[in-house]
């Protein structure tokens, strides 16, 4: 059995299983069947990438030609479809980018460049991404059917079959994407992620969703055009041989896929999509395609000015998105900005490209994927249960929905507090940026802002005073919590096993030993465990609950919650709590500043490379 997974068939299974499942998922199935499908597919993909060591797929020249013709047909169909969408939606931006893509594609096809015989390249970097995808995706697949019990009621226009199809298919596409070596194959897969993104954001068919989906389409279209321009400059179709200006152009495509400034808006808009889409595509897996490509190019970028330019752009995005997250009051928007911010940090590390930097980026990818998926499932749970996407609606979550509250707190903690893994990555990242004062300063301020907004979210979840439950509040079935528990356990296991993970997964990618900070981290983990133990021993003793202090205004005594009181006009009033939010004008103005700075940086990056 083990041997079977060890060769190329393991890799083919990892790509094919989600695609087969996608076909099955487009049938009208009951919830139980959908969950079963998710578990079986997840087990197959996990077994394929974990049990063995997937190997390269090298084809004979004739077979490569067949694959290439299939790829050309696929690309043509896809571009025609996007042109049709642009016309249908009357979006000249989408039309323009699709036309640019089509022209560049035709040009490259006309050049008749030789396709490499190495089709799928399962090196340690690809294998690392395969493992991350395989760990996270099944939890989201298994959760989606529960979420949709609720979502169906508020979104009658949703067509579920194509929706489920893409939710599964995208994982097969991603598995192929991180292993593809032929640049034109990679382009097809790249565009398929764009298409999936467009269709899934569009699936609720609301006005907001339609606008956001077209925005995602044209912005990623710009990325696709940059990608093709890079291929044209490279003059070869092998990803392994890309360098110089071509690498910089591909890095621009990667930055757009990873929603870096000034192309951050498509990912924020993508939050119009249903919960599982946000969790799978827009936080944990698909946007990581950009990070994957940047890391793949890191050695090439490292040799030219492209690396430092990408490091600057990523660091700027890290700060800018954290700033915008600090002011937002929509839960999913905060999560979206924090995703963009973290992706910025990952790209900055790819731009720096040293062993420590790449190790930091990989650890970030792993822990961010798991932690952010968990948080999006929690946000979806809040939406399903309490019917709101407002961060304030999650105020006192731990009182209203204790398990959801604990999982949400755990998810946030996993993204910025020790001893959980992401802080280790951030620490590595900050020190890896020491060579450049500008990048370091951006990361220092961004790090402060990250603490600011995460603690704010944590404070809302953990608050002991909850708003009264809204009319029509629901409860997700108990089984819906299993995927969340699984992800929470994964965070804990990953953090405890940080050293083996570094040795087994991260070091093979960089080909070097990670800096010896692991020793310190082990000490930290021990100390934290001791601290937790002390607390458990201390907190055994219970004490009575008292009323909150509100200058003695309460007229009604409700332990743990603020009561009713009589206002100065002698009218009955209810005390309410809310977090800190700046004005909308302030948010809009700061967004404009960051978009402008990002645009200048991106243009500068290409100009320097020229």
């Amino acid at each position, binding site marked *: 059995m083990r041997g079977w997974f060890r060769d190329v068939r393991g890799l083919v299974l990892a790509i094919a299983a989600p695609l087969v499942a996608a076909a099955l998922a487009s049938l009208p199935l009951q919830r139980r069947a959908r969950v079963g499908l998710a578990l079986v597919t997840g087990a197959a993909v996990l077994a394929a990438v974990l049990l063995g060591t997937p190997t390269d797929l090298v084809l004979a020249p004739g077979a490569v030609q067949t694959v290439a013709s299939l790829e050309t047909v696929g690309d043509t169909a896809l571009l025609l479809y996007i042109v049709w969408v642009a016309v249908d939606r009357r979006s000249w931006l989408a039309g323009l980018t699709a036309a640019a893509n089509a022209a560049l594609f035709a040009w490259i096809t006309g050049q008749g460049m030789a396709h490499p015989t190495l089709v799928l390249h399962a090196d340690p970097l690809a294998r690392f991404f395969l493992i991350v995808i395989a760990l996270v995706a099944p939890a989201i697949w298994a959760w989606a059917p529960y979420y949709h019990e609720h979502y169906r009621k508020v979104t009658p226009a949703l067509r579920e079959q194509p929706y489920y199809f893409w939710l599964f298919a995208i994982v097969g596409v991603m598995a192929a994407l991180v292993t593809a070596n032929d640049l034109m194959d990679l382009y097809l897969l790249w565009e398929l992620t764009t298409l999936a993104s467009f269709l899934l954001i569009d699936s609720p068919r609301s006005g907001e969703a339609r606008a956001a989906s077209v925005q995602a389409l044209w912005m990623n279209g710009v990325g696709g055009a940059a990608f093709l321009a890079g291929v044209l400059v490279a003059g070869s179709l092998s990803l392994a041989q890309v360098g110089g200006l071509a690498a910089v152009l591909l890095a621009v495509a990667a930055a757009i896929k990873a929603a870096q400034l000034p192309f951050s808006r498509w990912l924020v808009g993508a939050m119009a999509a249903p919960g599982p889409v946000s969790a799978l595509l827009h936080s944990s897996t698909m946007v990581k395609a950009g990070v994957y490509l940047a890391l793949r190019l890191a050695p090439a970028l490292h040799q030219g000015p492209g690396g430092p330019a990408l490091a600057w752009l990523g660091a700027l995005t890290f700060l800018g998105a954290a700033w915008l997250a600090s002011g937002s009051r929509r839960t999913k928007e905060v999560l979206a900005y924090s995703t963009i911010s973290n992706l910025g940090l990952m790209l900055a590390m790819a731009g720096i490209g040293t062993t420590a930097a790449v190790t930091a980026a990989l650890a970030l990818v792993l822990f961010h994927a798991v932690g952010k998926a968990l948080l999006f499932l929690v946000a979806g749970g809040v939406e399903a249960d309490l019917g709101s996407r407002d961060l304030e609606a999650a105020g006192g979550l731990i009182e209203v929905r204790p398990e959801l509250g604990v999982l949400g707190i755990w998810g946030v903690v996993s993204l910025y507090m020790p001893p959980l893994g992401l802080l280790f990555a951030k620490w590595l990242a900050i020190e890896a940026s020491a060579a450049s004062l500008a990048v370091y300063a951006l990361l220092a301020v961004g790090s*402060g802002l990250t603490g600011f907004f995460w603690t704010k979210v944590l404070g809302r979840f953990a*608050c002991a005073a909850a708003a009264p439950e809204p009319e029509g509040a629901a409860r997700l079935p108990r089984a819906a919590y299993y995927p969340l528990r699984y992800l929470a356990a994964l965070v804990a296991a990953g953090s405890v096993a940080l050293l083996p993970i570094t040795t087994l997964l991260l070091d093979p990618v960089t080909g070097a030993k990670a800096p010896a900070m692991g020793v310190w981290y082990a000490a930290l983990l021990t100390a934290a465990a001791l601290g937790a133990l002390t607390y458990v021993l201390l907190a055994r003793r219970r004490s009575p609950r008292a009323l909150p202090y509100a200058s003695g205004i309460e007229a009604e005594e409700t332990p*743990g919650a603020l009561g009713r009181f009589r206002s100065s006009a002698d009218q009955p009033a209810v005390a309410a709590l809310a977090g800190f939010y700046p004005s909308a004008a302030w948010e809009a103005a700061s967004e404009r500043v960051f978009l402008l700075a990002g645009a200048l940086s991106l243009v500068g990056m290409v100009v320097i490379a020229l």
Partner: protein
Amino acid sequence: MIWVLCWLLSLPVAGFLMGVDRRLTARLQGRVGPPLWQSIWDAGKLLGKPALRPAPRQALWAAGYLGFLGLAVACLLGGADLVLVVLLLGMATASLAVAGFIGPSPFSQLGAQRQLFLGLIYEPVLLLLALGVQRVTGGWTFAGASLPLLYRLPLFLPGLLVALLAAWRKSPFDLASSEHAHQELVAGLATEMGGRVLGLVELGHWWEMELLLLLAASLGYPSLGWALGLALAFFLLGILLDNLLPRLTWRYLWPLGWALGLGGGLLNLIWLGVSR
């Protein structure tokens, strides 16, 4: 393992310093003031008291505040990486803010939010300081310094002072909890804390103040005279400024803190880069 001994002594020493602070402040205000060990007795008494709980689970985050600070002080004394020390300090103050956010009182919420602004003001400054040390010594610890670091990093002093005032809850940076009884904030983020929970936060507060004093002293490394002088100067200056300056709102303090801390630090780093 002399640093372990130092770490074991660090908490009582910090408690004693708090007592000195209370005495000096009293004298500045024309009062006699409590005995020097009063802060330690107070904390001991608090730790022995059960808490009335308007907010459950605060104890966890209060313990986190204390625990992360204990780790940060241990790491600094043990010669660990400075970035790690600063990140741990950030986590400690974040834990304190969460403890405040748990409290349902509006005063607690307000104090916690302001604690976040304080962290935002000084965490980036201290991270920049770590880079300054790295640029001078070639490593992320003070150990490699041959001359007192102060000679190469003088412009970090205002930023460090801001951080000390914020960590010590001294005016004008005493936004989050009111150390003085005449404020609009009741007891800020500590409003809903009592007994054992308040005791944990009190001990954490000692360590937080001491950590900043230690960082200031480290700029004197390897000269013991400079180190002691800096710590003493910062300690006295903190008490003096607290009694001289009025409180300001976060709207003023945030730009002020960043201008002094980030501005000074960046200028210093640029100067280091040019002079090399």
